[in-house]
């Protein structure tokens, strides 16, 4: 069974149709890249999978391990293993990153009927994970993303990904706002999390990110549909010729 199956998905935002019958299948262990120009519906797709309010699904379905994802609340989707790394992670003043991580992890575990981590167990786990990602302990004491640089924010997303161990990671425009060094660090973190049990969907404008996170499959989106799919060489082709050819095709 596929991990994620998006079938003929149609989505509206305020009466305007953004996705017009999008289909996508992602299997465990695969990394898919979704590329496309601004307004092609890439971010909409990621938001609808994660369950962000404000989108109206007018047709099609999304199955996650065969279960109807659209029937689940966003927090239940998270507990089931859907993780969205945000393009612009939000700041939560006054809430220590450590507190946030623990509250979220235990909420997920509880929703799955697992026991919650005790404080010492949790601290051990966080320390282990942050060490492997080279994240200083000091960062965990600060408010969630408050005063973080662009790179730190993205590393905080990767840290959560490592900690929550989701089976599907959607990375929304992960490269935005990052310089080349920060990008490499974040991408290294993501690559460390690639596993045969985990799938990733990498959403990006630019081929650049895919030099660091090399995909198995590349999809090109235009005007709310997947217009072409192929191997990693498709990304290079796009880099050379641009999106214009696909806009005509759509």
């Amino acid at each position, binding site marked *: 069974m596929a991990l994620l199956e998006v079938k003929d998905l149609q989505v509206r935002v305020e009466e305007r149709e953004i996705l017009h019958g999008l289909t996508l299948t992602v299997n465990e262990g695969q990394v898919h890249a979704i590329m496309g120009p601004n307004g092609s519906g890439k971010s909409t797709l990621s938001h609808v999978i994660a369950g962000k309010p404000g989108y109206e699904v007018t047709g099609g379905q999304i199955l996650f391990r065969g279960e109807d994802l659209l029937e689940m609340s966003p927090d239940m989707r998270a507990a089931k293993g859907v993780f969205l790394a945000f393009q612009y992670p939000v700041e939560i*003043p006054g809430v220590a990153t450590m507190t946030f991580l623990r509250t979220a992890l*235990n909420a997920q575990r509880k929703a799955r009927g697992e026991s919650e981590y005790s404080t010492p167990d949790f601290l051990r786990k966080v320390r282990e994970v942050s060490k492997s990602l080279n994240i200083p302990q000091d960062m965990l004491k600060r408010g969630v993303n408050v005063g973080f640089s662009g790179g730190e924010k993205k590393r905080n997303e990767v840290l959560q990904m490592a900690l*929550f161990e989701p089976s599907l990671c959607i990375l929304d425009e992960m490269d935005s706002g990052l310089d080349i060094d920060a990008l490499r660090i974040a991408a290294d973190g993501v690559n460390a999390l690639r596993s045969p049990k985990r799938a990733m969907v990498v959403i990006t404008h630019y081929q650049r990110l895919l030099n660091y996170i090399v995909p198995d499959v590349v999809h090109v989106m235009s005007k709310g549909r997947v217009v072409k799919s192929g191997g990693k060489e498709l990304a290079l082709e796009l880099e050379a010729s641009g999106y214009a050819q696909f806009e005509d095709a759509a």
Partner: protein
Amino acid sequence: MPAVQETVERVKRIDVDQYRYGFETQIESDKAPKGLSEDTVRFISEKKNEPAWMLQWRLEAYRRWLTMTEPTWARVNYPKIDFQDLYYYSAPKPKKTVTSLDEIDPEILKTYEKLGIPLREVAMLEGVEPKPGEQDPARRKIAVDAVFDSVSVATTFKAELKKAGVIFMPISEAIREHPELVQKYLGSVVPTSDNFYATLNSAVFSDGSFVYVPPGVRCPMELSTYFRINERNTGQFERTLIIADKGSYVSYLEGCTAPQRDENQLHAAVVELVAHDDAEIKYSTVQNWYPGNSEGKGGIYNFVTKRGDCRGDRSKISWTQVETGSAITWKYPSCILRGDNSSGEFYSIAISNGFQQVDSGTKMIHLGKNTSSRIISKGIAAGKSQNTYRGLVTAHRKATGARNFTACDSLLIGDKCGAHTVPYIEAKNSSATFEHEATTSKISEDVLFYCVQRGLSQEEAVGLVVNGFVKDVLQQLPMEFAVEAQKLISISLEGSVG
């Protein structure tokens, strides 16, 4: 279990219309006839076996009150109060003089049990990290002077306090036992003519707490009073007077709950604090009186006058409040910085949900030289509520080197509520340094979505964000209140997001 989750567990068990503390105790009570007249004032004074000077004091206040009109400047709306349609005195009928807890009406004890109020000695802080300057938190204790419907029915810890020379007793008792202290200080911070509600209180106050800490004494425990309004239609007129003599220190905690009622209930308390040279008073409040039901019916009207007088040099008064209840809150705990180098602090969390209206803030009145004050106010508005911060910072001509820092932050949840900031700043000498910062923000959909995407429910997400927002103030509360307050904040915001 993290407090946020625990809170949600608790919230789930509460129906909106089933205010957790909304039960009524069946006990016989001793009431003054309905309405207010000189006779009512005499009745109250007689019930309390008060000396003649006290009755005169009350009567003067009453006569003054007759000439006054209700203030209307606050940003709150409510139907006109018929002051003749209220009872001004109600007390549980004493069976006999109480010497131990066993003799107290079991119904009353049961009420306290439901409220989770400890009447016995408690060493609550086992294993808790000590605050700076405190060596042995596990041995810190709380003394409870329990105020039940206007009359103090139990006072614990008396002996230990007595050993330290601290006087902590119902004010009605202090009037009889320490008339020289009461006469000297009562009304010296909030004069009988101060304002409509304070004057009313002066005429008809029923009971409250009295604290005197002698020179050089650090009060050996946190003092705590729980107020509870029980009798239907009974206005509560608490009167509290705390005096910290030279070089002394006292921390006083006040916490409140009230049962559900359809009629609006009036509460007009007066709290006076006096700090002499080098003395420090810390006064903390957690208030969660019945806010009214989901349609805005019922709820407590809370018109309180709280004022501290930093009378001595280098004295310090600190107010910390967590206001979550009441239908209407009208409350401005203030500091008069009279002594040179004295300082005042005001830390406030005011939460309004449903149809609640809050108009609260502080006054920092700089009179002495090199006085300083600090105001940190966090207002949170949800539902259809209105939340106003109103503050006055003033430096008089002789208050050279006066300093104030004010930060007022408002958080809005949803789009049907309102937050307002009304700061008044007056500097009458050029050496004053006043800083004012204010922000208003909204819990954005993006923040909530981020949290739920990481597995938190909507309610947990709101609780987490709000607790982060108020963290600076929560840290000012004594530990045992901080935990309670954190839970209360989340409970108060239940149902604030769709």
